């Protein structure tokens, strides 16, 4: 486990000191700290954080400090700055920390939240927010449309301070380059924080009203449920990816030699997609298409898949049914959509001599053209039981030779560019299928590739 860098330690210490200085006026007699409110809010925040510690609840509880910001913002609205600093302390000291080093992370989170809530509370007090909340014995009605103004400004300051502190720790502890450290931090968080501020404001108003703290608690319930559902969503999402992988592993049960091939084709497809500038959603679909392209082998009898030695024409015809089987298997999965076409057509060739339908040129779906290139590339570069894998430049040269007749030159170019840029960390020692690779380059002397891109083959740089 790596230790905390010295710069990070100094930075954490600095932030912690600032937070302590901010909290110093709270116990002085002149501060008139509302201890009851402070204790109640701190206990609430602690109660929200504690279930994450307990292994029984941990699976069903929203994880991450971001979940309970409505409570902290309400504290910033209700308490004077020196007291607001203290609200988050017990909760974040006791909260769950997932990675090493635990102690440093805990101290950091406590100091960061304390300072942020303090700054937010100071902003609110400076803008005269507390007076707009109404209540407080006099039974005054909250000054509502106007009360939104200081609350919104407070949320902005809250976001800003949190993002600045976050960027600082990224730069010092994670050694992220200084100009990248702050990128996107603020833009991502402002929206949610404004929503949290609305809930916090309503909570503060009800807290001050005659109905008291209990009614304020009810405000947080929908937020808490929302966070809980969101955590469930992430868990379900992870489970879904595991299921997709299980589909692929079911193929591995039948055909033990393809291990790893599907995942690598998925990755190569993603590389090409990124190079083509596809948007995030299609890229994800294309990755699934690459991973699932051979799922139809589930439909091919195991005897044929595992056969040693050459296949008879009859057996070859049975194997060539696998794109159609694959299409049939994933038919029910709604979100795959475009990826289904890729699974059906990834053995089509640009000149129309492929299968199952013998499509040619642009009639082959774009996804299928990408997966065909990725599939052939991995089939060539990975080691099989009877031969070693070819080096990456040789495989790219082979692909380029067949571009135009078998593969779409645009996709081959994209792959070559992507390999230049990112390298290929294919586990070259993985044993893959005995099956004829789909991109088995047939020598075609008359047809030279018309493209000259990437003629100088640089060896793929290894990552890691």
């Amino acid at each position, binding site marked *: 486990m790596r230790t905390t860098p010295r710069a990070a330690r100094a930075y954490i210490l600095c932030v912690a000191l600032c937070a302590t200085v901010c909290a110093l006026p709270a116990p002085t007699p002149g501060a008139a700290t509302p201890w009851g409110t402070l204790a109640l809010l701190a206990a609430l925040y602690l109660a929200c954080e504690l279930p994450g510690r307990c292994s029984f609840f941990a699976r069903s509880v929203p994880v991450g400090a971001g979940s309970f910001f409505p409570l902290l913002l309400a504290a910033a609205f209700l308490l004077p700055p020196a007291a607001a600093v203290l609200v988050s302390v017990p909760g974040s000291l006791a909260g769950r920390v997932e990675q090493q080093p635990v102690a440093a992370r805990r101290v950091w989170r406590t100091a960061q939240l304390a300072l942020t809530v303090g700054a937010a509370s100071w902003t609110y007090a400076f803008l005269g927010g507390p007076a707009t909340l109404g209540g407080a014995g006099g039974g005054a009605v909250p000054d*509502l449309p106007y009360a939104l103004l200081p609350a919104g400004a407070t949320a902005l300051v809250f976001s800003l301070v949190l993002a600045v502190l976050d960027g600082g720790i990224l730069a010092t502890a994670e050694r992220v380059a200084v100009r990248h450290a702050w990128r996107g931090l603020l833009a991502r968080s402002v929206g949610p924080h404004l929503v949290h501020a*609305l809930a916090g404001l*309503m909570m503060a*108003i009800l807290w001050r009203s005659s109905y008291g703290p209990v009614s304020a608690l*009810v405000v947080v319930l*929908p937020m808490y449920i929302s966070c809980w559902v969101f955590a469930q969503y992430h868990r379900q999402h*992870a489970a879904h990816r595991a299921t997709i992988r*299980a589909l692929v592993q079911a193929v591995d049960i039948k055909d033990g030699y393809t291990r790893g091939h599907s995942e690598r084709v998925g990755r190569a497809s993603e590389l090409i997609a990124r190079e083509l500038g596809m948007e995030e959603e299609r890229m994800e679909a294309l990755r699934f298409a690459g991973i699932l392209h051979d799922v139809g082998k589930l439909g091919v009898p195991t005897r044929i898949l595992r056969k040693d030695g050459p296949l008879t024409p009859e057996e070859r015809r049975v194997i060539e049914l696998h794109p159609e089987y694959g299409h049939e298997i994933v038919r029910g999965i709604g979100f795959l959509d475009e990826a289904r076409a890729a699974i059906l057509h990834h053995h089509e060739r640009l000149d129309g001599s492929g299968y199952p339908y013998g499509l040619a040129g642009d009639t082959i779906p774009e996804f299928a053209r990408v997966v065909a290139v990725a599939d052939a590339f991995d089939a060539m570069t990975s080691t099989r039981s009877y031969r070693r894998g070819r080096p990456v430049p040789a495989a790219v040269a082979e692909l380029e030779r067949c571009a135009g007749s078998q593969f779409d030159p645009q996709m081959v170019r994209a792959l070559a560019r992507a390999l230049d840029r990112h390298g290929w960390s294919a586990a070259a020692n993985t044993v893959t299928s005995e099956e004829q690779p789909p991109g088995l380059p047939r020598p075609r002397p008359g047809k030279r590739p018309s493209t000259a891109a990437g003629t100088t083959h640089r060896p793929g740089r290894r990552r890691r």
Partner: protein
Amino acid sequence: MTLRYAPAPPPAVLAVRGAAMLLAVVAFGHTLWNGVAEPGHALAFGVLVTVGELARWGSLPGEREPAPLGAAGALAYALLGRSGGEATTHGVLQVVTVVAAAQLLASVPHTARGSGPGPDLVARRVLAVGFAAVCFQPLSHSGRSERWFGEGLYFALFLVLLLALTALCEAVLAALTATTPRPFGPLLRDELRALIGIGSAVCATGAVMALGVAVAGLWALPLLCVPLLLTQVSFRRYAAVRTTYRQTIASLARSTEIAGYTPHGHARRVAELSTAVGRELGLAGPELSVLEYAALMHDIGQLSLVDPVPDGATARLPAAEQRRIALLGGAVVRQTGVDTAVAVVVEQQADPYREQPTAARIVRAVNAYDDLRGEGAGGPLGALEQLRLGTGRDYQPLVVEALARVLARGGLTSVGSG
């Protein structure tokens, strides 16, 4: 789905619809005759309910509460006794009028598209809101609620209690108007269980809206909508990924059919019948989805066989072989990221019933039924008879009888031939 268009709805459904209709007509008449008290508030809440109901757009089939904002707004209006510190004067019938009018207005675009909320949904909402208003408004008008609960903590608790009662009332109505022919008890339990999720968020928002408007006037409404809308978005995303997940599991289950190991539609039939039997035996919620996933994937272990079992009917293999296939299946299921309980069920599906968890007992019996049903002259009845003969060791008598009841109710052919 098919049952929804059954020729004559059961009397309970007719009674609920009739009561809602009667209440709405009386309320409209009364409001037209006497005029609207505090038109500003009526308009604001009417708009809120209408907009909330319009959020049904894009809801997924089977979503528990497709319009949480509409529900919360309607409940809040029923429980509104003060606004910005002043007492309000709208009565029960005005509440019903506003809510019913807003529902009708919001259903116009939906109906034009041919996908309006069913009459039962509207009737349930009108009756539940009427119930809440009847409980609260007279107490508030006569000043009794103030005398009993004051204007502080106890009043807030009183509102929360009232909303819990209303939720209970709506759950009973939902169970009464359910379209599936199932015993009332389990249906009601399903409805109550569903309340914990978005139901509690709706109730909480309803209570807070009533309190918030009482303190801060109508400005509290837009402020409180945002968190609830966020909850709705979260629930939608969750439901979407859940659907995809089920589709993927179903595809994985179908792979044995495409590989030629099991007959066409076997996994789906076993899953549907197993869940029906599970419900009959009182399973619900997570237990039921464990059962469903296990039933879908129970044959996945056959993928590791080099040669298919004839017709995929494992029920007639030697017990040791059955168990081996079950263990192989469990190994695949463990990789899918589903609850490990599913893998356990798949692994134990071939054990004698006394050593099995309930879900595995159900999967075993239903799988055997589906395997045996197709063969010989016996058909479904013969298959059931064979299961009954095996109740000494293999099949639990309780499960077999539940299966027989489900089959008798659904018709032996309609469920079986799927």
